[in-house]
């Protein structure tokens, strides 16, 4: 019911959503978020992480979501390594009886993941390679919860 994975391989967002939907006859709503590498100047993106702490921090976020909302199941998958434009980076899926809990918990998980889980992005453009700066807006969004 409660799944956290950090992996190099791609994931199947459809299969993950389907699994959440079928986990119990109680489920009436599944909300999922998929984050992808946007195209444009960026030619590739490398995601570094802190092995061990990553899983621990994602599990702590799922625990907190379970305390705050009535949920039936949740899945968080985050990829690491080198990704190309269009590739999936992250999946957050939440199943609940009613939709409001699933929406809130899904947005909570991605907002807090963005400011607490130890992942760092390095972008490659034609000219250079640079570490992505944290966004002010992300801090503000995470503090809402």
């Amino acid at each position, binding site marked *: 019911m409660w799944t956290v994975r950090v992996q190099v391989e791609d994931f199947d967002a459809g299969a993950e959503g389907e699994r959440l939907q079928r986990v119990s006859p109680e489920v009436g709503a599944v909300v999922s978020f998929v*984050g992808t590498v946007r195209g444009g100047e960026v030619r590739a993106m490398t*995601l*570094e*992480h*802190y092995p*061990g*702490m990553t899983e*621990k*921090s994602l599990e*702590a976020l799922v625990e907190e979501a379970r305390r705050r909302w009535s949920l039936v199941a949740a899945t968080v998958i*985050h990829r690491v390594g080198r990704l190309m434009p269009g590739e999936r*980076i*992250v999946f957050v899926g939440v199943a609940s009886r009613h939709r409001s809990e699933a929406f809130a918990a899904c947005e909570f998980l*991605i907002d807090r*993941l*963005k*400011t*607490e*889980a*130890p*992942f*760092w*992005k*390095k972008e490659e453009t034609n000219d250079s390679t640079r*570490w*992505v*700066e*944290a966004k002010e807006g992300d*801090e503000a969004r995470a503090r809402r919860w």
Partner: protein
Amino acid sequence: MAVRVLYFAALRDALPLAEEAVSLPAGVETMAALRAWLGARGEAWAPLVTWKTLRCARNQTLCAWDEPVRDGDEVAFFPPVTGG
């Protein structure tokens, strides 16, 4: 007091090492004190002191700068995270 110290991402790129085992002198008892002590070991370590927005973790959990450091801890310093 012996601790394992890890550096990540842009901070790691700016320092001589990604990871080290250090023995702390008496008086270095918090994350803030550890950061200052590590950063005072010469020019190469200055980013630990001069970078304004560093974060820290103790035993794989985000912590505040006044968090106490204990013998055997795994501590980490890094820039604000940018996953998701």
